[in-house]
């Protein structure tokens, strides 16, 4: 299942798409043809190998108009082993983070995870990386700040010190998350640009990521950041994935 053309310097969304994780956009976790990941509502093919971010547009069967409703239906029905996947169950994959961030520093961790029971169960896999600043964020964040005029900060960060916090029955590797030793090692040391916008749209405050390939900054996930304490948190669900 896991693609061999792993891209470097990716966040979880990059991992999901470039690894071909099959962290679907919830639409039909039992359908191999719809393996894709969603970022900001856009579909990306599961095997995108261009930048590791959202990459190319979807070739999945969903239209966006009709599929969300089948989310849980599909999940429920998908608990049987899907043909060709080798995985019998449906979970939810994602990445969550906590840390302390200032305009000059970024000291956080990110945990790549798999939740069982169609996303309503317990964690089955948690792999943590330290994520720390290695430089200033690439230019251009404030030009993509939604209803605001600027990003309050932007950093170039790197993944380091992976540790497996939880791996029930080998779920990290034996799932569409596909985080085996090689995959973890490949993520170790990767870099990405992060920027933050308070109330990007409405009250939604957003963490943006930088696409090194085209130089664009795009919203990644709603995230909370407290200026006084520097506390940063986010939790990005990349979609259903099988295990």
């Amino acid at each position, binding site marked *: 299942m896991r693609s061999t053309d792993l891209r470097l310097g990716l966040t979880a969304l990059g991992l999901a798409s470039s690894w071909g994780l099959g962290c679907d956009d919830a639409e039909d976790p039992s359908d191999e043809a719809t393996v894709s990941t969603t970022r900001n509502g856009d579909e990306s093919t599961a095997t995108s190998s261009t930048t590791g971010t959202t990459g190319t547009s979807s070739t999945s069967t969903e239209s966006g108009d009709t599929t969300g409703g089948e989310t849980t239906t599909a999940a429920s029905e998908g608990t049987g082993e899907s043909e060709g996947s080798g995985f019998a169950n449906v979970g939810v994959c994602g990445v969550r983070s906590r840390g302390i961030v200032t305009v000059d520093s970024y000291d956080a961790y990110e945990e790549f995870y798999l939740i069982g029971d169609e996303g309503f169960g317990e964690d089955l896999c948690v792999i943590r990386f330290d994520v720390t600043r290695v430089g200033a964020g690439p230019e251009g964040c404030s030009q993509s700040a939604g209803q605001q005029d600027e990003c309050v900060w932007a950093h170039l960060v790197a993944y380091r010190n992976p540790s497996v916090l939880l791996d029930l029955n080998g779920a990290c590797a034996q799932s569409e998350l596909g985080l085996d030793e090689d995959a973890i090692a490949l993520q170790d040391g990767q870099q990405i640009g992060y920027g933050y916008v308070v109330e990007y749209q409405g009250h939604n405050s957003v963490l943006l990521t930088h696409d090194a390939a085209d130089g664009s900054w795009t919203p990644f996930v*709603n995230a909370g950041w407290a200026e006084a304490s520097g506390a940063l948190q986010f939790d990005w669900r990349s979609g259903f994935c099988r295990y």
Partner: protein
Amino acid sequence: MSFRPHEFGRGMVRGGSLAVLHRLMHHRCAVAMLLGVACSDSAENAGRDETASSSSGEPSSASATATGGTEVSGGAGTTGGETSADLEGTTGSADDETTPLPDPSSGEESSDGPMASQEYAREIQVAVHDQVKTILVVTWEQAIAADRVWLAFSFEGGESMTSRAHPGGTGTHRDVVLGVPGETEVEVSIVSEIEGMQYVTTPHMGTTGAVPASMPVPTVLAYEAELASPDRFLLGAVEDSADDVGENLFSYLSYQAWLYVMDRQGRIVWYYNDPSRNSPMGFPRIARDGEYLIAEESRVGGEGRILRMTLDREYFDPFDLPGLADAIDVTDDGTLLFDVGRSGELHERTPDGTDRAIWSCEAENLGFDNCYSNTINWNAVEDSVFMSFPEPGAVVEIDRATGTLIGHYGNQAGAWEFAPPLEAPPEAWRFGFQHFPNLTPQGTLLVSSHMPGYEAFEQTPTPNQHAFVEFAIDRGSQTLTEVWRYTEGPEWPRARGMAIRLANGNTLANYGTAGVIREITPDKQTAFHVKFDIPTGDDNYNKLVGHNFFVDDLYALNGGPL
């Protein structure tokens, strides 16, 4: 008098357990009680605590609830899946109410009542719904055609409830049990009506599944039934905000969002969450052009989506809505009203998918420093739309057809005047990060707003300095005059908050980020008080609640589009 099936049981019979009634199944009165109607025979038993007997002579421990009822011992029921009638499995009591049995066919009261029969509905199966574990799905084969068929069910010895009637042709039928909490044993029978005569099956047992553990749990702090509106259920939205959200306020809207229906005990009887997404979802609506729900998903970066669904998701029709900024409303022809982007542009999307820009905050140029709107509320009487701009403290009313500004209420020069308050403080009215301006049935404007002097978004929470305030609108003099306010609640909504007037004159209000919902009487008593609490940290910040509405008939959310 006549009854429609879904009305059975509403205030008619309480405490009638189907299992107990099963022991009396050959007794016509027992069947009547199962259906939620009373039987004249039971008049003889009123006020007694006696042992009833079935027609077979088998003793039964059912007793009149007027004397407290007598528990019927028995084994456990089943959990989900196919079940069968379980004579030994439940606890309950018969009812002693003596209202004469209505004859649904004639509309006259009659001593005739439903008959026990297993001939009409066969192969009855009760299963937990795949997606919503609090719903039971009942399937059966209708062996003999009936004019109408429906479910009669009860749980925990409570009042008998019914589903909607539908045509009773022969063949496979499906219906759902709604309104039951998780992990609750339910007794279900199928009623077949032919020429006004009702035939009811023996009770079948099912047990609802568990509500997902990750769902926020409400706490009912007060419920005064005699003060409250008669509606039995509350539909709303809540975010599973983290325990430390009060220390990181911008993290609101980054957690999992849930839609729910709770009963007056705070038990979740229906829920929706998509764990695979990160989609703030806080503004559910009850459709006006059918029997279903509508909710928004404001995904990251302005990629919105609209969900339309029945409770059992037999109807589930989402569609993407790029640019969706915040709240939504719907008209009675199914048109969606929403706003997009930082320009505060009001749009409508008709049922055929046609998008039309109606009005723009930026283009109107009212001098707002920020055109972010937190409310879209349709006024059916005027066919106008209320929008709320919290940063400048302004509410506008737009004529939907023409896009004309027909009202501008708030803090700006040029806005309509506020008449002096009913009492000071405040010395004068101003809006303060207001939310959810809407028209009451009386034609007054109801708004959730920080009090003057405490207007700012970043204001330190201050008890009793938030108001649900009602203004009379004088369109001639362009004046808002206060007619009622509620500041008794100590809670503080940093964001969101809403208040709507109920049919009985009460006000249903919530405090957004404070996680508190109150039903308030006109004299400011609390009739219903619910909290989605974060037990640690600053109590000003709890799990974020969104819009909420009372509902009495859940089947009115399960019919789908007209």
